[in-house]
């Protein structure tokens, strides 16, 4: 059993967006590790390992912060959120929804499931960059992440 300390898990299917996000997050060298998975299934595998995650009693990885997109193939963000927030081992991990969906139902659902934050990705690049920068600043600098 190896438990490597991964700081941030980015769950994003759009590779371009992922690259831009990672690039921005890495500025000021604040994040050690940023791991990127491109859909919900990979995300769950990453955290819980393969097989039914609900039966797991041990984690493969435990990120300190999860940035979660909603619209993804195979397993979408809401399901991932549900999985994470319902498992005793992972429910304290802060999850920031980072999605282009502005839909009220999505927002409500995420908060109901226990999302810690909901951020809409701006369409303009400049704005997008600023938002990511703010996320970085807030969640990694100002906000206290729980220790495990």
């Amino acid at each position, binding site marked *: 059993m190896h438990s490597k300390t991964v700081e941030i898990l980015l769950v994003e299917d759009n590779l371009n967006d992922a690259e831009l996000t990672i690039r921005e997050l890495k500025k000021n060298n604040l994040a050690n590790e940023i791991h990127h998975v491109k859909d919900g299934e990979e995300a769950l595998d990453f955290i819980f390992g393969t097989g039914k995650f609900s039966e797991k009693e041990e984690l493969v990885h435990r990120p300190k912060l999860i940035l979660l997109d909603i619209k993804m193939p195979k397993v979408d963000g809401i399901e991932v959120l549900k999985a994470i927030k319902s498992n005793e081992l992972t429910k304290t991990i802060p999850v920031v929804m980072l999605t282009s969906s502005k839909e009220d139902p999505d927002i409500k659902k995420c908060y109901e499931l226990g999302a810690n934050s909901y951020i809409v990705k701006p369409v*303009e690049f400049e704005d997008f960059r600023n938002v990511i920068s703010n996320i970085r600043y807030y969640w990694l600098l100002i906000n206290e992440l729980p220790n495990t």
Partner: protein
Amino acid sequence: MNSFIIRSMTIAVTLLIIAVLSVILISILQFREIRETNSIITRNEENRYLMQQLLLSMLDNETGARGYVITGKEDFLEPLKKSELSLQKFRNELSSKTINPVLASLLKDSLSPLIDKRIAFSRQMVSLRKEGKEDEVRMLVLGGKGKHYTDEFRRISDKMNNIRSGILNKERKNNEQSIYRLNLFLYITLGFIFILSVINFREIIRFSNKQKAVEAELKRSKEVFSTLFYKSPVMKLIFEPSEIRILDVNDSFCNFFGFTKDELIGKTTAETGLRIPSPLREEVIRKMQAGELVRNIEGQIKTNKGEQKWVSINLDRVSIQNNDRIIGSYVDITQQKTQQEIIANHNRELEERVFEKTRELVKNEEELRLLNETLERKVLERTAQLEKANKEMEAFSYSVSHDLRAPLRGIIGFTNIIEEDYGSKMEEEEKRLFTIIKNNTQKMGSLIDDLLAFSRLGRKELTRTDVDMQTMVQEVVTELDKNLTNNIEWLINPLPPAVADYTTIKQVWSNLIGNAIKYSSKNDHPKIEVGSFEKDNKQVYFIKDNGVGFDPRYKDKLFRVFQRLHSENEFEGTGIGLALSDKIITRHGGSIWAEGDINKGASFYFTLL
């Protein structure tokens, strides 16, 4: 009223009798009084006479005695004897005739002894003379006893006469009073009777007048009845209830049924054919016996000519001079009945028609209802469809905008990365090329936004409210002008408020003012005027600038999508702004147009509904 007359007469007669009796009675009484008085007077006179005679006799006795005494002649003894006899005679008579006790006692006690004494004296004188005793006689005479007796007799008889006079006077007075009283009584009685008679008489007169009035009233009443009954336009008849025999009819009745009075009076209704037909007859009889009113019983009666006529029968039971009678009033309702039948037929027809029509209506209603239901369902369906379509469009637009933009973000992002990471190593030309790429990407973003706005507008509902155009323009100007460096000379005239959709009209102003600013930016002294005027009863808003203007030949193209009259190099823009404004204004029901010339500025006008 006979009793009254009898009574009055009785009273009158009674009064008369009383009067007569009174008179008779009083007369009798009076008569008796007078007679009594008369008898008293007579007695009085007689007694006076007797007294006188007694006195004379006393004197005779005296003189006789004296005469003999003087003469001695026997001749004088004769009168003396006579006087004694008359004295006795008269004394007895007087004594029997004297009633008054005072007088009687005087007579007996006083007078009578005197007479005896005189007689005795005279006898004494005579006897003495006869004896020749003249001196004794003279002594006797001189003694005066004889004279004394006579004088005393005179005195007493005078006294008695006075008493008698008194008695007589008293008697007279009594008599007078009595008579007076009787007369008074009589007069009072008569007076009383007179008054009662007068009263009685007045009563009779009054009664007589009343009788006259009653008679006059009766006469009048008879006349009224006669008129009412005989001349009434309503057919009337009087009959007696036991055999239904007609006693009287009026003219209307006769005329209507075609009989003469003689043909009807005395006959029964059966004989004349005027009987009320059964079963009505039974009902009428029943009602009359029960004491109910018989009113408006409608039945058919045959006239003398054989026609059947409808009449409305009213019967009243009355008592005329203690005789049981029935008064019938008939009203001819033949016409009414005919009309009623016509109306009834009409009604029946109408009812049938109404029934049919109602059936039709009900059917129509049913159809209508079904139609309504169908329509409503269709409307619901369409609405649902529309909503769905709208939603789909929205989703589509959103998706389009979103998904088209995502790659743009990528392009700009990565271009940035290149610039950031490798910018120092890049040539000027490379940098320039990247800038072009970035610019184009920006442009695409704007185009997407504008297109999205344009499409969204088509589906949007306008909400008209009162819009303060003045304030709106001010806001837009302030917003758009704040970052500019050229000092634009603004002239914003008072703008009247309008009824419009706030958001979209603001978009129009933004567009127009933005354009004005943009296209006059190259001017040294840019001047923009905003205002309004009235034309054809409509409010026209305008904005004028002194910028580059446009070629008026192409003024119609101005409002087309993506149409521009200037190149991107000269002025940036997507060419959708005016198209959007045009669409907005058209949706409001107004119109927008422009005027201008090259380098002479442009003026844009618009009206709302």
